[in-house]
């Protein structure tokens, strides 16, 4: 399997387009850093000495909201309870929520690049099978002493590896740029997580890695879908077009459907943002983390089944 992945990796990185993709993502992070630095020098952050009063006002608002809407919506109730607990904890422990830009906050900002990583990973996933058909090389690829499913698996793993490399590259570049431009925060900032009704301090570094991974779930699902379309229809344009359309429109459409119908919770895009279970509100009342993971798994299995089943059976006529 290692050799097959090496083959696919070679085919990716011997093409200039792949390097351009990396270049664009890196330039974007650098651009973002430069802009934020420029913005910061024009409007230097002022220390807010009244942050405790501000938080107390917000706390009151949260409590009122909890009274009003929390009764009939379990998810919103959890959300406000979490907000209140974290704010109380901040006041008690003298943890000011407002700090200037630093390396950690910048790594968080750089998550904006995940959209681009998504686009590029989808393009790679859409091409990795269908290109072999349009180049005609599939005829030489599939007459080797290897099962077709192994070759397809190597291709899928290569797509995953590509996405992970882009994600790690973004994280690393953001860390380097963030450190160079903004430096470390004056005092260590913990991440405040709300677990089983308790506020606990967590490592911000691990939290950021977690956020990157959670933020990539829709990319993973859409890339898997693009890969499936590519393997089933041998058509990269269709795979790219449909996947990108869903990537940009899927969330919005799901939101519109969700405002009217409860079955919206079965739509893929209602479940791709798992971070709502940690610091937000899920789209439809009653959705749980377990439910979303189960739905994601179903879609994932469906895509994979279609890709592998059709690819292994099909007559190659390219």
């Amino acid at each position, binding site marked *: 399997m290692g050799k097959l992945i090496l*083959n696919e990796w070679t085919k990716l990185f011997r093409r200039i387009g792949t390097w351009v993709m990396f270049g664009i993502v890196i330039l974007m992070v650098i651009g973002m850093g430069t802009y934020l630095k420029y913005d910061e020098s024009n409007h230097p952050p002022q220390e807010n000495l009244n942050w405790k009063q501000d938080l107390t006002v917000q706390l009151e608002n949260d409590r009122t909201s909890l009274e009003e809407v929390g009764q009939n919506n379990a998810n919103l109730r959890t959300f406000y309870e979490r907000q209140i607990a974290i704010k109380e904890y901040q006041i008690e422990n003298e943890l000011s929520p407002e700090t200037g830009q630093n390396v950690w906050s910048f790594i968080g900002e750089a998550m904006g690049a995940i959209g681009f990583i998504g686009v590029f990973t989808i393009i790679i996933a859409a091409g990795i099978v269908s290109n072999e058909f349009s180049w005609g090389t599939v005829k030489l690829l599939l007459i*080797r*002493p290897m099962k077709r499913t192994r070759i397809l698996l190597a291709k899928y793993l290569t797509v995953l590896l590509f996405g992970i490399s882009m994600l790690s590259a973004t994280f690393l570049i953001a860390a380097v740029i963030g450190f160079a431009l903004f430096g470390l925060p004056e005092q260590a900032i913990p991440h405040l997580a709300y677990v089983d009704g308790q506020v606990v301090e967590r490592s911000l570094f691990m939290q950021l890695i977690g956020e990157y991974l959670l933020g990539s779930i829709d990319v993973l699902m859409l890339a898997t879908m693009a890969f499936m379309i590519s393997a089933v229809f041998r058509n990269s344009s269709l795979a790219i077009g449909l996947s990108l359309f869903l990537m940009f429109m899927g969330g919005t459409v799901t939101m519109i459907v969700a405002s009217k119908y409860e079955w919206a919770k079965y739509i893929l895009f209602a479940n791709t943002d798992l971070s709502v279970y940690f610091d937000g509100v899920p789209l439809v009342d009653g959705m749980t983390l377990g439910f979303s993971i189960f739905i994601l798994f179903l879609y994932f299995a469906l895509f994979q089944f279609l890709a592998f089943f059709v690819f292994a059976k099909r007559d190659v006529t390219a």
Partner: protein
Amino acid sequence: MKEVLRLDHVKKVIKGKKIIDDLSFSVREGEIFGFLGPNGAGKTTTIRMIVGLMKISEGDIVIAGKSIKKDFTKAIGQVGAIVENPEMYKFLTGYQNLLQYARMHEGITKEKIAEIVELVGLTDRIHEKVKSYSLGMRQRLGLAQCLLHDPKLLILDEPTNGLDPAGIREIRDHLRLLTRERGMSVIVSSHLLSEMELMCDRIAIIQNGKLIDVQTVNEFVQNRTATYQIETGSLGDAAFWLKSEWNIVMSKEGFTVETERENIPLLIRNLAAAGVDVFGVKTISKTLEDRFLEVTNK
């Protein structure tokens, strides 16, 4: 002689249409086997089934004792093939292309690659991008790609397509060398019939997905009956019995007749007895092309 490939009542049905109908033949060790048929006869479909690119609807194909249906990886490991054009990754060099395929077989060393590159005469250009290769060079790289793992059976679909005469000759010499010295068997499909005559030991003809005939090249060209051109004077009344008994075809100088060699003296005696002047008799030798058209036009 041992058989390297056997097709056993192979059928291919696509959307209810029989593309290949009950095709059976076998290829022996060390022979060059020609696969002949007009366009759309099912040559490429058959080749795709042999190499497992297409599924067999009914029947089986056995390569070096292993069924391509049941034992795909073992069977295909004995095959090197070019299906239609040798399409390579154009953005890689010739060498990088070969590395791709070398990684998919067991135990192909750097030395082995170098040896094959030398054999097909690409040593000077192997580290250039395939983009810059001529068609002949791509064809040679395609050949190198099938030879890397020392297959027992080589399948070349239209190997001389688009090559100049020198290139065609080169391919022919390569194939002779490979069969004689390495005991490989080769299946060649081609439209260039005269080319087949020079290259192949045996030829199978298929039409509309059915096997019409398998013959050795010599048999094929010099079939027992031949056509003779008889130059005569006026035939007169003799024309009647010539037409009914000998089935002649009239021509400008006399007539042509299709018969066995030993019947010619009898014909001449009969003509002499009937008072027809005979000026000359000559054999019209048939080319493979004539035979091919004859067989496929039935």
